[in-house]
């Protein structure tokens, strides 16, 4: 049956023809999806014959399985809930197996009682648009992937920067350790030169005595002193070698030492100079007899102080040098007093502990002794101060450490 309609402008329109030739596919389906009518365009889209479709096929028969899931889970729900669904993209699978991308709009037609009679749908061919969309989609996926990659890289960068920060901290710590090591090494170098220089100087003095002496008994006595000093020299060398080994592993080793022992050894090392200068060297360590302290440091400190006092003795009087210990405020203090040349503290002040400062025109002055002594004392947590009066004498006061820790 054909319905014709005469327009006011005298055109005769055949609705059936209009529908069949319209540029979009049209079909009508029952609520269960069975297609009950369609226009020619729709059949062209599907490439099936009318007899193969009408009252036989459902719309979902033209869809892939994935399309069917989308149809059931999205299209059906929206259509039934709102009575219409628009712009849903499906891929039609045509009779020859090729795919035709379409955009579909559907509306539900109800009877007067609100029952769902059938569904009307229009289908548009979007093949050309789809190609652009595919490109867009690919571009979007690439962009998404890139964005993910960026996020990932960003995370990696963040992780790297944290790692670098950690390494920097480690380096700083290492650097600090190296600085300490360096300080120890220069200490060690000093101890080495000084501790060896003194006994060698002593040997030289003894040799002079030996050469000058004609008395066999004196010579025998001096020879026994040679042996002693050589013994000390060997011992010092061995200790130095040991210390090198120890210092590679740990910072400073605290040994249990007796002040008397170290002092006696120091006196023996400087025996030659003491004899030479006729100095009276005495000690009293009764107040604090022992301490836990780096043995090498203590030897170095005593050697340095005693050789200083001997070196800077006054030519006008018999040199008197006295070493003693004291405990004040739980601190062990070592005192070294002499009646030597003294230092003009007003002139030199605290510079006396600086490097390469010599305050006497004495030929033996090297200007490192007090600096290194101070460094060693401070390395263990102590301090050194000096009281002196020119041509009266000098007292060095060394706070070694808290007595509670010995």
């Amino acid at each position: 049956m054909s319905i014709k309609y005469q327009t006011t402008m005298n055109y005769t329109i055949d609705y059936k023809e209009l529908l069949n030739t319209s540029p979009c596919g049209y079909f009508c389906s029952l609520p269960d999806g069975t297609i009950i009518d369609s226009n020619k365009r729709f059949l062209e889209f599907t490439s099936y014959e009318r007899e193969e479709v009408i009252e036989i096929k459902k719309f979902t028969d033209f869809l892939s399985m994935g399309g069917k899931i989308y149809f059931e889970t999205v299209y059906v729900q929206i259509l039934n809930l709102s009575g219409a669904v628009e712009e849903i993209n499906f891929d039609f699978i045509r009779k020859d197996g090729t795919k035709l991308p379409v955009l579909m709009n559907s509306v539900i037609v109800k009877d007067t009682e609100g029952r769902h009679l059938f569904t009307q749908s229009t289908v548009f061919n979007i093949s050309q648009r789809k190609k652009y969309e595919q490109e867009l989609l690919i571009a979007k996926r690439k962009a998404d992937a890139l964005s993910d990659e960026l996020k990932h890289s960003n995370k990696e960068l963040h992780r790297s920067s944290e790692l670098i920060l950690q390494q920097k901290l480690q380096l700083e710590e290492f650097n600090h350790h190296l600085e300490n090591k360096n300080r120890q090494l220069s200490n060690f170098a000093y101890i080495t030169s000084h501790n060896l220089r003194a006994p060698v100087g002593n040997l030289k003095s003894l040799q002079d005595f030996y050469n000058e002496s004609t008395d066999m008994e004196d010579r025998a006595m001096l020879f026994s002193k040679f042996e002693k000093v050589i013994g000390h020299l060997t011992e010092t060398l061995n200790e130095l070698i040991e210390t090198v080994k120890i210092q590679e592993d740990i910072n400073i080793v605290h040994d249990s030492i007796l002040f008397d022992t170290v002092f006696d050894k120091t006196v023996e090392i400087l025996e030659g100079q003491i004899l030479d200068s006729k100095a009276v060297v005495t000690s009293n360590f009764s107040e604090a007899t022992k301490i836990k302290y780096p043995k090498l440091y203590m030897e170095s400190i005593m050697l340095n102080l005693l050789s200083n006092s001997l070196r800077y003795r006054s030519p006008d009087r018999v040199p008197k040098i006295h070493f003693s210990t004291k405990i004040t405020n739980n601190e062990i203090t070592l005192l070294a007093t002499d009646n030597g040349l003294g230092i003009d503290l007003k002139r030199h002040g605290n510079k006396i502990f600086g490097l390469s400062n010599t305050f006497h025109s004495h030929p033996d002055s090297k200007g490192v002794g007090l600096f290194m002594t101070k460094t060693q004392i401070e390395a263990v947590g102590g301090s050194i101060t000096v009281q002196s009066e020119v041509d009266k004498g000098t007292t060095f006061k060394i706070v070694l450490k808290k007595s509670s820790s010995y």
Partner: protein
Amino acid sequence: MLKKLIARNNITIHGVGKKPMLMVHGYGCDQNMWRFITPEFKDDYQIILIDLVGSGKSDENAYDYDKYSSLEGYADDIVEICDALDLKDVCFVGHSVSAMIGALAVLKKPSVFKKLIMIAPSPRYINDNHYLGGFSQKDIDELMETLDSNYLGWSSAMAPIIMGNADRPELTEELEHSFCQSNPAIAKHFAKVTFLGDNRSDLEKLTTETLILQSKSDVIASIEVGRYVHNHIANSTLVILDATGHCPHLTAPNQTIEAMKKYLL
């Protein structure tokens, strides 16, 4: 806590009855899908409707890709909601994937639930040896393609709303008037979790009374799958509705209501 859950799952409560009926939508929609069913239960039940996180008007920010990478995450939410609302003897009604979410929730806390109504359930969509789920991996890939195609225009137009663009209320309004909208990334993730999951082994653990509503023709959950579910849940009843498609509660609401009422009597 309750306030947080209400916002997270867009919990709405309807009806004047006392017996709690918790209804949960399936993939692709939201609580609107129950609109033809709820009027018939309003007098006898306290009907609790929710939107799964990531769907409908749930709090999208609560969508945690790890948590919701299996149905367990959703089942935890169901138990949490029942606890927060202090529900007891709950009748759980779940469509499609939510039928399985319900089963998992029941297994997590059986004491809360009295009855389980599964509409168009499937414990596994992909074929596996002798098991016919109805789909292959390729089919699910095609679904992803279809999702991509249909979200292409959507993502840019809807992005401002998803970003919470408050200065363009007309867009928000538009969203409110449209059904079953969701963020494309979440929709794809949820689709993968739904269609690639396998909960067959959970069915046999169920002891709660269960009603299975099955369309006589459903490409997503076939009659064979419906029978499989029935055969693996001890205390279950299978009713095959004279309806086509995966959403009998939408396409054949009267039959769905009738079957539910008959079972709940």
